[in-house]
């Protein structure tokens, strides 16, 4: 490369020369192959969207899009498919999971980053990874056989002592308190904890250590340092991680199916028996579905797909922005 004319050499001194690469034949093949692989990912998501919409169309048009999204009946013989009640129940389960899971997850993230002895930290992060990898089926079995019993005791207590809060009220005095939104939310909470913990831990670990030491050096307590340095710095990343957990909770299938009784009506009394989620609907009804009901299930899957896609993309955008800021 010829030397670039430098009228003011001192200014250009630090600017690296642009690299001119000549691509060989092998390079072009290599780039083509990896671009093809990358395009496969695009293709998969594109196919998902197109095919689900296409196959969902007969069911949605038979019911009508408004009735589909707001109705709470599932009568394949009358061609009436409504997932409105299930959408409400899905969101209630996910919100319950967040209320239980977020404090634990953030506490765990802070514990690993700021409080635990340095020697314990690899084991703790390993434990979080392990928790994330445990199959949801096993969580569901454990929730069903080990957690239902003690949690229905908690539910009883909540119903008798905190019934000033509307969602803890019971419609009838002797309604069953097992197989409810509350218990499903609890099981899902344990499943989303590792997701929230690992993402928010990553973000909080990027706080400039100098600022933390500064806060401590000014006489702040450790909690003062966390409150005034770590949390403000990681705020958007934490919000993003919570949204990621929310997206995971919305799509959780097997653990929910095992611990609830599926109902199609919206059930805002979270302690009472009967709840539901879209994915639970698909997994439960799929076995004996025929004809148009299959299209109805695909339509429900499409609704779930779009809902989680939106939540996840917002969450990822927030997390990535906060990582760039760090």
């Amino acid at each position: 490369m010829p030397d670039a004319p430098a009228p003011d050499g001192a200014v250009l001194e630090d600017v690296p020369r642009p690299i001119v690469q000549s691509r060989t034949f092998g390079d072009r093949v290599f780039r083509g192959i990896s671009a093809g692989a990358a395009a496969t990912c695009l293709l998969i998501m594109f196919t998902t969207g197109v095919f689900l919409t296409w196959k969902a169309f007969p069911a949605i048009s038979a019911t009508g899009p408004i009735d589909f999204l707001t109705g709470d009946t599932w009568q394949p013989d009358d061609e009436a498919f409504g997932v409105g009640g299930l959408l409400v129940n899905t969101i209630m389960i996910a919100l319950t999971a967040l209320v239980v899971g977020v404090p634990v997850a953030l506490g765990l993230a802070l514990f690993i980053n700021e409080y635990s002895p340095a020697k314990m930290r690899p084991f703790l992060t390993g434990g979080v990874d392990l928790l994330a990898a445990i199959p949801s089926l096993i969580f569901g079995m454990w929730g069903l056989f080990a957690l239902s019993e003690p949690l229905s005791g908690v539910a009883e207590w909540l119903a008798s002592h905190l019934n000033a809060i509307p969602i803890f009220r019971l419609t009838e005095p002797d309604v069953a308190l097992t197989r409810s939104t509350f218990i499903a939310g609890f099981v899902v909470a344990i499943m989303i904890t590792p997701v929230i913990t690992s993402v928010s831990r990553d973000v909080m670990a990027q706080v400039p250590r100098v600022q933390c030491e500064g806060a401590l050096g000014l006489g702040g307590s450790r909690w003062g340092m966390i409150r005034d340095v770590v949390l403000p710095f990681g705020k958007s990343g934490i919000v993003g991680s919570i949204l990621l957990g929310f997206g995971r909770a919305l799509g959780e299938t097997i653990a929910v199916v095992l611990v609830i009784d599926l109902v199609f009506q919206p059930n805002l009394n979270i302690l009472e028996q009967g709840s539901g989620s879209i994915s639970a609907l698909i997994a439960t009804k799929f076995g004996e579905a025929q004809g148009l009901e299959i299209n109805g299930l695909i339509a429900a899957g499409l609704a779930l797909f779009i809902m989680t896609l939106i939540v996840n993309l917002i969450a990822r955008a927030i997390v990535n922005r906060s990582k760039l800021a760090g």
Partner: protein
Amino acid sequence: MTVELERTDTIWLDESAVVPEVDEVVEPVVEPPVIDDPDPPASDPDVPFRPSALGPSDRLEFVLSAVSALAFAWALCLVMDWSAPLTFAIWAIIWFVTGTYVTARARTSKVVAMDRLVTTLIWLSGAFAVGVLGWMIVFVLIEGIGGLVDDLPTGEWVARLGAVALMVAVAVVVRWRLGRREAAGTGTTLTRLLPRVVGAACAVGAMLVILPVINTEFFTSDIAEVGPLDEGGGIYHALIGTLEQITIATVISVPIAILTAIYLHEIKGRLAVPVRFIVDAMSGLPSIVAGLIVFTVWVNTGRGFSGASAGVALAIIMIPIVTRTAEEILRTIDNGLRESALALGAPQWRSVVQVVLPTARAGLITASILGVARAIGETAPVLLTAFGSAVTNYNPFSAPQSDLPLFIWGLLREPNEAQIARAWSAAVVLLLLVLVLVITARVIGERGARKRTGR
């Protein structure tokens, strides 16, 4: 230059803070300044500033709070006639947290007391997470281990488990003692080799003790001919299905995922932004939707349920996991390596194939194993694609096939103890598989990371 202060509980800056033990205020320890450190460890999470906040009086307060919490909860449960252990635990924890705050508030200041309160809460959430994980693993093991082993008298069990525990203890102690000498730099060939030899010997010994009592029938028969109330039957068909489906999923997803990661990080082509966006979206895809799409496109168009379609659905779940982990690994590779290869005149593909990929090999294996660990336990997508079956089906390309999650799923919904006991035993096998996979991935990954940074 970093100044490290040894903190005691008495030096928080607060006008209301009482400072009774003046001679305990420790002088700052000034570390020798590091000259010309090009990369100050400012953001290194491994060396944070860690004030040791607990003095003897703090410890005493914690112990007293704990004791009084237990006493209070016990008395309360006795008076109110409550018997649930959960109730006891909740009241004890509430009292303990309040107690730590009140004692700290009485002796020191609001700031210190608040710090104490938060410390307690955060330790509790850490203990809660560890406790839940432990409780779940132990619960699954207790429920399911009975079906996996032969019926033996309790005494023989104690003897066999004791022998295994002894061997594990010997291996750990030898490794730990000699590892310390190794770390101190006084290691010899003997200290390097002995832990491995002892470890291998103990592993072989433990297997010799455990293997003869394993219930082999559970692993070598299916449940096609077994009635719901019969003895026997096993998971052979499910193991075959899992093996075939996971192999198909791995063969499809790992090349695509690693090439995508290379595209995202090495080539950084025009598609990089949308692809990263889509991979993010895929990683949040509910697993049942992955099954539903394969069902819609493939199974429901007249081709029927098969193990291969389950493999494709699992591949859709694995691709984003492996891609993201692999990209993180590629990011850790020193740019100098790539630039040296290019400077030597290698075209980009040779620098990737011969320099980047071999350096990243351990990390990429870790990424793949983590993907497998995630896929192996997925139930919802295989339910919609392989459907499950009671007979052994060796051909993954036609007819429904079972696998471990489907086996468990099918039996769990039957109202009969023997079937549910089989489901628990299969759950133990699945859980152990996942544990082994995750731990293997971690060990390989850590060795690889040490190698990469050691160079």
